[in-house]
């Protein structure tokens, strides 16, 4: 049931998570894997708020009402992702981990290096289209990660914190659900192959670099500080607590195909099924119904 003629109507879900009982190492006995995934909370809110600003700025350029509707749904979902990860970030602060130095750099990347740069007119528009292509490349990677976390039963077997798993899988499911929007927007605004793939060449190394710094940062601020080691990454991968490297490389290669379309990767069914059982998403639907 995967070859979709279905056009899912995207909408944001009013989720809420309670972190008061979250242990610092929420994958018990796995500080490295915990911090590897914790980087998401440091990296994503700023990135997602950047998506929201960019896509809101891109809306006036969209001349396809159906795509505009998709973009609006995407914006709301990303805004809720930012709020939800920010909640974990705030919890880390109360747990005594000051993420300021790392987050400050992420802010600089998205607000200055990838910000509006004081442009106007056609230059501003061109820089906007370029960054939409960058978002499309990032979204290809996040959809891949979302699909992985939906299927990673190893996290359940490792007794990862259920609320954290719900956050990651709700987020992952929405990434899968809206995985075509950024690509469709880029194709509508430009669509040229070279511009599309050169932005993956920026996005993938940039994310790997920021991620590596984030893990090293969190490990150094752990109550039992330690260094990030390759063998810890290999262990996490072997235990299935992070995506396997081979699959990640195949994911990057898939983006290079001239006929690439996100709908051919990942499973809307898995996303829809998870969202129907996610405690947070179900509670959010309940509150929407009660309005």
């Amino acid at each position, binding site marked *: 049931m995967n070859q979709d003629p279905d056009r899912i109507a995207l909408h944001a879900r009013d989720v809420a998570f309670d972190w008061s009982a979250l242990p610092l190492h929420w994958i018990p006995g796995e500080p490295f894997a915990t911090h590897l995934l914790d980087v998401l909370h440091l990296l994503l809110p700023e990135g997602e708020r950047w998506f929201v600003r960019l896509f809101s700025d891109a*809306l006036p350029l*969209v001349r396809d009402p159906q*795509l505009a509707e998709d973009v609006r749904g995407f914006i709301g979902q990303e*805004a809720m992702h930012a709020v939800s990860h920010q909640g974990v970030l705030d919890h880390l602060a109360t747990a005594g981990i000051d993420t300021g130095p790392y987050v400050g750099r992420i802010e600089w990347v998205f607000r200055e290096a990838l910000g509006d740069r004081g442009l106007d007119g056609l230059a501003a*528009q061109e820089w906007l289209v370029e960054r939409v292509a960058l978002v499309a490349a990032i979204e290809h990677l996040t959809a891949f990660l979302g699909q992985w976390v939906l299927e990673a039963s190893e996290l359940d077997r490792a007794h990862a914190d259920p609320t954290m798993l719900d956050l990651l899988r709700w987020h992952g499911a929405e990434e899968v659900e809206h995985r075509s929007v950024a690509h469709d927007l880029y194709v509508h605004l430009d669509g040229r192959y070279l511009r599309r793939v050169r932005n993956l060449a920026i996005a993938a190394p940039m994310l790997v*670099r920021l991620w590596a710094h984030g893990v090293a940062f969190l490990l150094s601020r752990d109550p039992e500080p330690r260094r990030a080691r390759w063998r810890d990454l290999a262990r996490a991968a072997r235990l299935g607590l992070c995506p396997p490297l081979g699959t990640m490389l195949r994911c990057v290669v898939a983006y290079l195909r001239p006929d690439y379309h996100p709908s051919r990767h990942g499973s809307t069914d898995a996303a829809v099924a998870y969202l129907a059982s996610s405690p947070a998403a179900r509670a959010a639907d309940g509150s929407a*119904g009660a309005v």
Partner: protein
Amino acid sequence: MKEDRLAEVIGSAALRIALRSGRRRRPAQPVDRDLRLTVTAVRAEAPDVAGLTLARPDGADLPAWRPGAHLDLVLPSGLLRQYSLCGDPDDRASYRIAVRRLATGSAEVHGLAPGTEITARGPRNAFPLAAAPGYLFLAGGIGITPLAPMARAAAAAGVPWRLVHTGRDRASLPLSAALDPAHVLLRPDDEHGGPPPVAALVAEQLAALPRGSAVYCCGPPPMIDAVRRAVPAGHRLHSERFSPPPVRGGRAFTVELARTGRTVDVPADRSALDAVQTVLPAVPYSCRQGFCGTCHVRLLAGRTERDTAAPGSMALCVARAEGDRLVLDL
């Protein structure tokens, strides 16, 4: 904020390349998504339910859809209404909808005669049918419309399914008679002395289905709430998301858009967002229920109520003026 030299170098290089790329970029082309359809047949599915068949005037294929999808109909009066597709997704030449006469919009649909031309948009799916080991479909009255194609899809795929159709009386249970009666429980209130005990009904039906079966529910909000309470956590419950609730008990007010230099009137029964959109069609918004924060704008003067935005700003989609006038940074 802390500077990142490498990011700065890459960002600057990307910008230079972007500006060069722009010289040969073709601007976005307009896409017309309107479907111009003709009502080809009208039949009474139940005493107050009209079943309409819609097709292109030239009989050409329509966009494909999957069970759970809905169509936006632009009614002759300009009203926009959403109706679930209740026909067969394999029939590419026509769409079918079934509409109960309830209020202004549905009364207008009931007035559409064969041969009438009508504009539609979509289809879109806010209620997708995802693979499951079994399905329990719970329909309240006209809520059967998205579920009937789902039940047929489950039957065609050989997946176990049950459908319970509730309503006031037998006349309020359209479409379900055409489904395989071995899987269908019709439960009119008047024959059972009132509405069903939802928790017991759900438990009893799920017991007859494989473990991990998904519940799909479509009906009036109180029924969906009851089902939500009855389906245990960890089970899949799918219900359709409807448009945001209408504005109730609002007062009219005026919004001044400081940067645009325009003033718009917000009627008592519409949101500030609706009103602002008439002047600024690309104003950012998303959830239209006050929580996602996309439409929050800086408030330059005036006080708001029902506002979910931080002090000093306003959630255009839900907030209203405490007085008669607001000034916004738009």
